[in-house]
């Protein structure tokens, strides 16, 4: 078929739609160039996700819903409100709308980098005497997040494998937990955010299915937990991941959840929220660590 064509230099810019289509809403809204650029910068800064030119339609279809539920008439009005006030939760809703269903390994990368350095080395040092480490992934969904942490630990902190470790991954959905436990992923899923070296090291392939190796599955205890209810007994946690979850709850529930987390987080433990999330106006006992876009919090001393 195609002969090798001549090499050409290309710098043109056309739109190409190769992503998961978002929901479409009745009200078609258009986004102006300056508003698109504003949203693009916001999403890049807060979630490390890039919206290139040509993604206007994505912004239009997904933000359209936020515009409606928040009582605006146009995307322009919404962006104006965003520019005026960055801490009213609107930001988070916009980012969530644009990044939802984007489940990848090492999603947003920054929290995992922070985990690798300095969080885990620090904990390794301070827990040297007890050799106990407790981690909780509080919304593990289809499993990419807990397994990313497990791979990171196995690869960079093998010393921890000899410790007494409770690594709990929870979700509200028993169905999702079943998926997590199976450790099975499709090709499309392992194509997302997973370093190729980890794919080789930590996965097996049977037919078209990629299965995470038992040595990693066995590191994690999967348990059903409904965050909006009273928590079951859990050991004191050194690290809690609760990323892009609070967004789904109303303010009172958010406060209640953070209150519960505070009581089970070690005084020098770490809480990771989504990069676009915040404890501000919800719980004053947490302080945000000054780590780039990692959503990393700690209890005030």
């Amino acid at each position: 078929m195609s002969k090798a064509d001549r090499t050409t230099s290309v710098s043109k810019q056309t739109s190409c739609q190769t992503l998961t289509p978002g929901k479409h809403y009745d009200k078609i809204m258009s986004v102006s160039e300056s508003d698109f650029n504003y949203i693009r910068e916001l999403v890049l800064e807060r979630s490390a996700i890039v919206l290139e030119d040509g993604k206007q339609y994505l912004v239009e279809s997904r933000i359209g819903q936020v515009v409606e539920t928040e009582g605006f008439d146009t995307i322009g009005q919404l962006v104006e409100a965003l520019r005026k006030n960055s801490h009213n939760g609107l930001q988070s809703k916009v980012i969530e709308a644009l990044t939802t269903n984007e489940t990848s390994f090492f999603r947003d990368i920054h929290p995992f980098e922070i985990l690798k350095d300095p969080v885990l080395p620090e904990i390794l040092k301070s827990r040297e005497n007890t050799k106990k480490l407790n981690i909780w992934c509080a919304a593990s969904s289809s499993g990419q997040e807990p397994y990313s942490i497990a791979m990171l630990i196995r690869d960079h902190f093998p010393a921890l494998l000899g410790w007494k470790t409770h690594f709990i991954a929870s979700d509200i959905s028993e169905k999702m937990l079943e998926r997590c436990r199976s450790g099975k992923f499709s090709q499309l899923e392992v194509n997302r955010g997973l370093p190729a070296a980890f794919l080789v090291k930590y996965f097996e392939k049977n037919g078209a299915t990629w299965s995470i190796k038992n040595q990693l599955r066995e590191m994690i205890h999967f348990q059903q937990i409904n965050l909006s209810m009273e928590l079951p007994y859990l050991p004191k946690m050194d690290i809690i991941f609760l990323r892009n979850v609070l967004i789904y709850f109303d303010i009172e529930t958010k406060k209640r959840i953070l209150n519960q987390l505070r009581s089970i987080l070690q005084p020098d433990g770490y809480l990771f929220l989504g990069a676009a999330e915040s404890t501000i106006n919800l719980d004053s006992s947490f302080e945000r660590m000054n780590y780039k876009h990692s959503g990393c919090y700690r209890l005030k001393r």
Partner: protein
Amino acid sequence: MAFECEAEISQFVTDIWSTFLSMKVSPTDKPFKPKGKDNTLAGCVQITGEWQGAVTLYAPKEIGKRVAATMYGLDEKEVDNQQVQDVIGEITNILAGNIKSLLPAPCSISLPCVAITDYNLHHPGSETVSAVNFDCEGLSILVVLLQEHVK
């Protein structure tokens, strides 16, 4: 050894169409109907090694044009034959790469070739082990996995 992998093929084709082309396809029971003479594109990739055979994808030219238009960011009227053939070849190639993971290793796949046909590519000495029909925006696509007779 004959073996069936209709479910896997359905999944592969659906994934390729949805992620790569942002188009929807769904498996159907309706048999493939060539639309007029010389209007069908056939992409073919040979599999050699532990398992010998071929993956063939049949699609009407309209689909080829639609897919090429998406990929090249052009209007359907603007795409040329070579672009259409390249796209069908590459999709067959990706599909064959996916199907290979179901077959005994080691196997290798050939570079794709694409022909305009009356639909029935003749593969002497081979038999169909799996054939799945798809509906793509009202048009039909057929994927056939052929295995060479074991000598």
